[in-house]
C-alpha cells in the first residue's frame, strides 16, 4: 500500500516513513508544493499525509486540486497550527482526518490505518490478528468467534495496538490517545496499567494468546511472542 508524505521538514518525514515502513507500507516523500503536485498527478496513493505549511504553496490548495480532479486518495492533514479554522477548512475541502503537531508516530499510524480502512481499499472494515477479529463498524471484538465485552477505553486501546502491530507504543502516546490533550495528569500511567491488565484478562479468558508485552515500563508492544 502506498503512502505519500508531504512534509517540508526532512527529518520528520524520514521518521514517519521509517515507522510506517515497518507496517509494510510503501512510502514516498515530497518536501515542497511542486514536488507534491507532480507526485499526486502521476500516482495514486492509499493515503496522503499533508502538511499545511509548505514552501511554494499551502497544503490546502494541494487538497483542493486533488479533490477537483476527483482523486479519492485518503488525506490526513498535519499542521503546526493547532487551529480550528485550519481543521475545519481542511475537513470541508475533503480531508479525512486532522492531526496537530507534535504527535506520536503510533497515533499517526493508527489514524492512517483507520483512513485506509474507511476508504475500504483492502475491501474490509475488519482487522484480524490470529484469533482476534475487530469489526470497526460495529465496534465489536471477537476472539475465537466469541464476543468479548470491552469498555470504551479497552476497545480504543485494542484498536490502537492493532494499528501498531509489532511496534512499541510509548505510555505517553497511549495516555494521549485515550485521554486527549487537555488531560495532563501524571497518574494516567496507572490507569493505562489497569486498563491493559483488564483487557489482557478478558482476552485470555476466552483463550486468546497474550499478545501485549510490557517493554521496560516505557511502553507496550502488541505482537506474537
Amino acid at each position, binding site marked *: 500500500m502506498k503512502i505519500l508524505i508531504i512534509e517540508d*521538514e526532512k*527529518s*520528520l518525514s524520514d*521518521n*514517519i516513513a*521509517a*515507522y510506517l515502513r*515497518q507496517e509494510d507500507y510503501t512510502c514516498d516523500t515530497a518536501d515542497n508544493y511542486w514536488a507534491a503536485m507532480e507526485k499526486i498527478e502521476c500516482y495514486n496513493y492509499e493515503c496522503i499525509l499533508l502538511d499545511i505549511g509548505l514552501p511554494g504553496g499551502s497544503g490546502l490548495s494541494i487538497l483542493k486540486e486533488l479533490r477537483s480532479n476527483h482523486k479519492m486518495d485518503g488525506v490526513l492533514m498535519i499542521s*503546526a*497550527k*493547532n*487551529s*480550528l479554522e485550519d481543521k475545519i477548512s481542511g475537513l470541508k475541502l475533503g480531508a479525512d482526518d486532522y492531526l*496537530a*503537531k*507534535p*504527535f*506520536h*508516530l*503510533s497515533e499517526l499510524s493508527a489514524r492512517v490505518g483507520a483512513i485506509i480502512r474507511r476508504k475500504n481499499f483492502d475491501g474490509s472494515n475488519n482487522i484480524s490478528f490470529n484469533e482476534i477479529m475487530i469489526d470497526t463498524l460495529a465496534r465489536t471484538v471477537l476472539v475465537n468467534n466469541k464476543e468479548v465485552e470491552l469498555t470504551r477505553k479497552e476497545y480504543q486501546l485494542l484498536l490502537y495496538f492493532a494499528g501498531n502491530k509489532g*511496534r*512499541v507504543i*510509548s*505510555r*505517553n*502516546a497511549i495516555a*494521549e490517545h485515550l485521554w486527549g*490533550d*487537555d*488531560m*495532563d*495528569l*501524571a*497518574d494516567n500511567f*496507572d*490507569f493505562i496499567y489497569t486498563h491493559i491488565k483488564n483487557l489482557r484478562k478478558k482476552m485470555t479468558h476466552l483463550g486468546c494468546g497474550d499478545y501485549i508485552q510490557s*517493554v*521496560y*515500563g*516505557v*511502553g507496550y508492544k502488541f505482537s506474537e511472542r
Partner: protein
Amino acid sequence: MKLFTKYGRINFLAILSVLFAGSVCYYYIIRYVLIHQLDETLKVEEQEILDFVHKKNQLPEPSQYRDQTVFFTRTDEPVKRRFLSVRHHGHFRQIFFPVLADKMQYMAMVSKSQEESDDLIGLIVIITLGLMGLLFLVLYLVNRLVLRKLWRPFYQTLSSIKQFHLSSQRTIPDLNTDINEFQELGIAVQEMARKVLQDYDSVKNFADNASHEMQTPLAIINSRLDLMIQDQKLDERQMKQLQGIYDATGRLTKLNQSLLLLTKIDNNQFVNVKDISLDLLIKEKIFELDELIHAKHLQLSVNASPASVQMNEYLADILINNLMSNAIRHNLENGKIDIIICPGMLKISNTSDPLGFDGAGIFDRFQKNAQSQGIGLGLAIVKQISDNYHFIIDYSYFNDLHTFTLRF
C-alpha cells in the same frame, strides 16, 4: 483638588490682597483730599475775618449757620494757628487763629461740619465694595463656566486614556479643539497608544510564532523517540532514560499548547458563540474524569440546576475541564469535591492543604506549589476565559475548603 479650584483659590487670594491694600490707600487719599478741601474753605473764612478786622478794626459778629460756626474768645496767651477735627455733637473741622482788634487779642475759631465729606467717603466705600463683589462674582463664573469649557478637551483625552485597553485594539480618537496645548497632548497620547498597540502586537505575534515554530521540532523529537524505542538492542537503563525524555517532551508540548491557547483567547480567535448548558457540561466532565475521582476515593456532591451561558463551546469545555482537573489534582486522598451550579453561578470547592503562596496570585501564570505536577497555566487559562466573557472568577479558602466561584 481640581486644577481650577486651586487656580481660583490662588487668584482669589491675590485679587483680595491687592484690592484690600488698594482700598486702604484709596480711602486715605480720598479722606486727605476731602479734608484738605475743607481746610481750604476754612482758610477762605479766616482770610475774610482778617480782612474785615483789618478794614473795620473790630471783630465781626459771631455767627452760627447750619454747618458753619464762627466764634471769638478773648485771650492773653499767644495763640497758635492750627486745624483740628472734633467729634462732639457731630463731626467738625475747626481752625483756630489769632486776631488783633481794638488792641485786644482774640482767638478766633471757625468750625465747619465734616459730615458731608464723611458721607462722600461712605458712598465711595460702598461703591468700591460693590465693585469688588461684582469682580469676584464674575471671576467665579469665569472659572466655573469658561474654564470648564476650556478644559473639556483635556477631560476628553483623559477619558480616552481611561477607556484605552490593549486587547480591545481601539486607538485613541481624534480630539476636536483649537487649543494648541490640548492638540499637542492629544497627538502625543495618540502616538503613544499607537506605539503601545504596535509593541503589544509584536510581542503577541512573537509568542504566537514562537509557539508555532516549536511544534515542528517537538514533533521531530517525539517521532525520533517513537522510532528509538523500537530498537530491541536497547536495555532497560537506556529505555528509562528515553522515558525521561518522553516525559519532558510531553511537558514541553503541553506548555506550548497552553501558551498558544492563551494567545488565541487573547486574540479573540474563538468567535463562534452558542448556548452552553453548564450543568450538562459538568455532568459530562464528571463522567470523563470518573477514573481520576475514583482513584483518589473522592467524595463528590453535585447540586445542579439548569444554567446556560453564551460562549464558545471549546472554551466552555476548557474552562470546566481546568476547574474540575484542578479540584481533583490538588485534592487529598479520600477528600471531597462540592459542586453547586445554578443560573448565573458555578461554585467548585475541594479539600486540600493550604496554599504555599498568596491566594490573590492563584490565577497568575506559572503560579503553583512546589510539589504540583502541573505546568501552572490551567487557572491562568480559566481567568483569561472568564475575563474574555466578562465573567467574575473568585478564589477563597475557608474551613479547609478551596472554593472557586464563577459568576456569569
